[in-house]
């Protein structure tokens, strides 16, 4: 029982990341009809927004420390962050410590601008081209973006920790009456799940309860009719691309304390997120979210030692296995609209 609860918890945070990326992918596919293989790169750029802000906040000037020497035997230089000079050591250190949550504010405008530039500068030229062309150009763009990041930040992972207040783990086992230490779960992963739920809820509320969202939903259902009503649906769809980029970026920002960001992290999530979209149903926002959590949890269960003993290697194929079964039995996905992907 403990093992099951533990793997469900594990699946929730992994599923949160899948769901957030898949949500953005679905928004773009549902509005613009574009299969965006650069979406993983947007997740990665979001993570590097956190790295960048963390570095900006840590900008320092050097002070010679005559009491110490460096590796060459010269007087050692100590880096003193400017924020410490401006706000005092305690407040300055706290600001640096909270770099990741603060990056949310930094990443939102950056990601929206990147998304809009990407859509206006490149992707709009491929609306009427076949999906294969869209995949090729966006995949190429993803590689270019990751090489740019590698050029500026290097190939090694860059540690970007959570604030000190959120280190350590919560003992769910003790709370549920099990032995202590049996069901533990890091605080930051709980926050990541809550954050993902908030973003997903926010996007749904935005689409459901605002006029802008209503027009976008109408455009997704019947673009031509909406245009005939004199509404500039293209401009709204461009903004939706920016919003999808921001969702992916925020998923990346908050993921940085879970795994140190590196230039390749977007690719690691991209393929799995596409599988999530297909399983959930192309164009279905609830489907993307549900499939994200479902596959995250399944992946966690498949990684259990007890499962691997009977089915070696199942952890590496479980998601694809589910995708094959879904595509064979229900081509439109779990919650896809009838007719989509079924011809």
């Amino acid at each position, binding site marked *: 029982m403990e*093992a099951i609860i533990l793997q469900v918890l594990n699946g929730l945070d992994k599923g949160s990341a899948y769901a957030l990326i898949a949500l953005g992918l679905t928004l773009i596919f549902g509005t613009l009809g574009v299969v965006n293989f650069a979406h993983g790169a947007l997740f990665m750029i979001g993570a590097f927004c956190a790295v960048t802000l963390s570095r900006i906040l840590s900008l320092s000037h050097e002070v010679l420390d005559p009491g*110490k020497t460096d*590796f*060459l035997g010269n007087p050692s230089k100590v880096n003193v962050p400017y924020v410490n000079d401006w706000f005092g050591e305690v407040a300055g250190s706290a600001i640096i410590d909270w770099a990741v949550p603060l990056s949310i504010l930094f990443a939102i405008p950056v990601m929206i601008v990147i998304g809009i530039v990407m859509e206006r500068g490149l992707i709009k030229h491929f609306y009427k081209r076949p999906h294969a062309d869209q995949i090729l150009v966006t995949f190429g763009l993803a590689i270019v973006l990751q090489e740019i990041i*590698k050029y500026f930040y290097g*190939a090694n992972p860059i540690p970007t920790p959570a604030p000190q207040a959120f280190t350590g783990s919560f003992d769910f086992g003790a709370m549920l009456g099990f032995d202590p230490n049996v069901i533990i779960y890091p605080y930051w992963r709980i926050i990541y799940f809550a954050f993902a739920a908030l973003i997903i809820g926010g996007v749904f509320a935005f689409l459901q309860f605002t006029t802008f969202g209503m027009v976008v939903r109408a455009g997704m259902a019947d673009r031509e009719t909406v245009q005939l009503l004199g509404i500039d649906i293209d401009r709204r769809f461009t903004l939706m691309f920016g919003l999808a980029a921001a969702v992916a970026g925020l998923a990346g920002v908050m993921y940085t304390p*879970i795994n140190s960001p590196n230039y390749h*992290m977007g690719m690691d999530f991209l393929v799995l997120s596409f599988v999530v979209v297909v399983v959930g149903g192309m164009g279905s926002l609830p489907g993307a979210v549900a499939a994200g959590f479902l596959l995250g949890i399944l*992946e*966690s269960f498949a990684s259990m030692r007890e499962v691997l003993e009977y089915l070696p290697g199942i952890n590496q194929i479980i998601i694809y296995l589910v995708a094959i079964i879904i595509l064979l039995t229900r081509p439109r996905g779990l919650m896809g609209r009838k007719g989509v992907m079924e011809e």
Partner: protein
Amino acid sequence: MTKSNLTRRGLIKTSAVAGVGLATPTIFTASSVAAFTNEPTGSSVTLGFNVPQSGPYADEGADELRAYELAVEHLNGGGDGGLMNTFSSKALKGNGILGKEVKYVTGDTQTKSDAARASARSMIEKDGAVMITGGSSSGVAVAVQALCQEAGVIFMAGLTHSNDTTGKDKKANGFRHFFNSYMSGAALAPILANNYGTDRRAYHLTADYNWGYTTEEAVRTSTEALGWETVAAVKTPLTQTDFSSYIAPVLQSGADVLVLNHYGGNMVNSLTNAVQFGLRDKLVNNKNFEIIVPLYSRLMAKGAGANVKGIYGSTNWHWSLTDEGSKAFVKSFGTKYGFPPSQAAHTTYVQAMLYADAVERAGSFNPCAVAEALEGFEFDGMGNGKTLYRAEDHQCFKDVLVVRGKENPTSEFDLLEIVEVTPTEQVTYDASIFGGELGACNPGA
């Protein structure tokens, strides 16, 4: 009248043989003029530096290249001479190798065996490289070593830690300065027993490829011999990024030690996840829960940040060593580049120097003469104390460093502290235990 015996079948056979002959790369065919592959005939000699310039180990590759450039500078008489001043062999004079100016070409292994073989082949065939060196993966090292054996050039391996490189996959033309999984296990186990006791239950997470298997086996064998029990060993996919589902069940298993047989990005992520789960704050079986990383790299430790604090592992070399060779190399490298060298830089620099020295002592670039000069070669002053290039398997035997993540680092380079320098005798093993045959040296002609 002449009678022709040419039949249709015969014509096809002849054509096929001729086709295969023409298609065979020139490096695999005998040359009628040269005594061996890429015999240098002009005033210069070309070395091939095959390192990861792209992909996940690109930063390690960049440090390897820096070291090679420094080695070439020193070999050609530039700079402060670096380790040539402390090297016990005095064959190198700073006038190139055998009086020929040292030039170099570089290849990008991408940390992929096929790409690494292609770049090595290109450097040998097109650029005339007489020796190939570098790399940051055992898979790549084994693949390139086999190619160099076929091509008839010497391969001086870079970072490769699997037992197989000088075990079942060893080749007469290949030489490894880096230590291996067995040595890590042999060096680590006594330190672990001293610090954590002999009554421990270990849980292994192992990267699902050759290096992971040999490292797990080495650590298991060494720790079990001291009384530890192995509770479980779980293989993790090489492509795994989030290890939470593998780490969460560790406490349920009753284990009180987690051994992460991971390297590179795998190590950074699994260690970060394990620390996030608060494993090190737990008390299991009335003992503090501990984590072990058998193979440390300073560049990788940097990626894991503060999570490495207090965690034991082993490493080939560290810039904080105080012997004359290490100090000379740190000074030389640090002055040129502004930061201390990594173990990757040290190993590759030393490999370039050892090759050049062997050529000087042999008086020839002929790979068989060079191999003979390296086999059984004992030297000192290169940063690891007295070292032997064992003739039987071309594995270097030297002291192994047991290190621990530093609690209070003073800089971004000051991440590891040396806990013990394990003497060579303690990590030496019989050359036959890992199987394989060196075979005969191939000069390529």
